């Protein structure tokens, strides 16, 4: 061991030592490259996995002419440097794209922004989204038809500043760990089918608007999550059509709770209220 150390540190072997290290570096694979090859594969994969109903990717994403930085002229692609095929942002909003979340984005290893909003994408969000979008600061998937859960591992995307998942069909809970995204400035999950308690955020930039139109969500800044069995929206004991009833003052209170789900019920209760009101009015007037 000491002999080996002596050999390595001796000056006459130093140049051999440096030479072999350099050779090793040269022979090593893409992990030391500047992401060019993988970024091109990333875009090829995105194009292959999405249905391009309006033909934009088909006409603009031409992989046959592969000069340096050729992908930088592709529709929706922004590069770090104009003559180097390293993708900075992908902005494919409102291009009539169909299909599922393009998992090939994983190979755009220098990606900071992904905007797939206002398309016809659907299916689930990938559960290992932190591996696919490690350094992304802005993710906009709004106005699509994504369904299923918000991935728990989204909380590992620590550079996230803007997270827009609104106007989809996401369901289940918002993972509480999303509050670990300390750089989050814009967060919206409005207009989904989410439920349960919302995460506890420290920042003031996340208001009730972030959660709008998810009737099942509760917790500050929304209404508090009360015990389900006492909630007005609990299960009804009555079923079937609302029956016609003779209106008596003592039965009104009992009927009201069960009629929230029935439109006819609201009309009947209103009519009952009027009936009682008129009766009382004339009674009082005649006195």
């Amino acid at each position, binding site marked *: 061991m000491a002999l080996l150390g002596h050999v390595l540190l001796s000056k006459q072997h130093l140049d051999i030592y440096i030479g072999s290290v350099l050779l090793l570096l040269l022979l090593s694979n893409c992990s030391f490259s500047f992401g060019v090859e993988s970024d091109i594969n990333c875009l090829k994969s995105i194009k292959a996995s999405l249905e391009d109903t309006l033909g934009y990717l088909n*006409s603009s994403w031409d992989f046959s002419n592969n000069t340096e930085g050729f992908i930088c*002229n592709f529709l929706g692609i922004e590069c770090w440097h104009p003559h180097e095929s390293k993708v900075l942002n992908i902005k494919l909003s409102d291009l009539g794209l169909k299909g599922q979340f393009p998992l090939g984005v994983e190979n755009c290893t220098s990606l900071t922004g992904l905007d797939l909003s206002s398309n016809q994408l659907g299916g689930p969000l990938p559960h290992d989204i932190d591996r696919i979008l490690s350094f992304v600061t802005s993710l906009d998937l709004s106005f699509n038809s994504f369904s299923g859960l918000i991935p728990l591992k989204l909380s590992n995307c620590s550079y996230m500043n803007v997270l827009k998942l609104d106007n989809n069909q996401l369901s289940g809970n918002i993972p509480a760990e999303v509050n670990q995204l300390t750089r989050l400035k814009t967060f919206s999950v409005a207009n989904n089918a989410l439920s349960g308690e919302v995460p506890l955020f420290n920042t003031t930039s996340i208001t009730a608007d972030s959660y709008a139109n998810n009737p099942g969500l509760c917790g500050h800044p929304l209404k508090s999550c009360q015990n389900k069995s006492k909630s007005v929206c609990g299960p009804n004991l009555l079923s079937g059509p609302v029956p016609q009833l003779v209106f008596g003052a003592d039965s009104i209170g009992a009927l009201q709770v069960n009629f929230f789900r029935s439109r006819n019920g609201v009309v009947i209760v209103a009519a009952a209220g009027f009936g009682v009101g008129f009766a009382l009015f004339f009674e009082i007037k005649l006195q």
Partner: protein
Amino acid sequence: MGCRVLLGFLLAAAAVIASVDCNSEGDILNAWKTQLTDPNNVLQSWDPTLVNPCTFFHVTCNSENSVTRLDLGNASLSGPLIPELGNLTNLQYLEVFGNRLSGSIPNEIGNLRNLVSLDLYKNNFTGRIPKSFGHLHFLRFLRVFSNSLTGRIPPNIGNLTSLEILELNSNRLAGPLPFVVLELVRFGQLKHLDVSDNLLAGTVHRTNSTRFRVTTIIQDPQA
């Protein structure tokens, strides 16, 4: 006597308040609904008795309860676009593509100064492209392809420096392609321009700019 004056005043005040429309955007959409034939009942949730249209399906509002998006693509709707739609001043996305809408495109659409995306494609619109489109300074997507539009391409579309995608193909547009529109590739944001399958004539000037990319062929009936 005093009672009658007071009553009259109250009635007048009530009339004034009633006429100052608290629900003008909802009224616009409901007025439009009455002119549309909706075989798939996509507009079923559009209820004139509601306070604002923000709970209507396919309508999106901002935090001030003003309409920002109409998403009615591929909904089998037929009927016209009404001029009153131009009063939805905060509208950013007008998505009515893939329907059977007909009639001409109202000039009032040019009043939608916040419009970002105007998708009228794959319908049966006739008449001209309104000159007022030149006022839509935030427009990024203008797609009116696959209609029966006639007349010339208004040169003031060349004012739309934010325009990224311009698709006028598959219509019956005549006259030249205005050079200022083509210049949007160099001086604006235009990345995709399609005027194919029309009745256009005239010369398209070449440029040496490497970012110049016309993706489709201009059809010249005189050639």
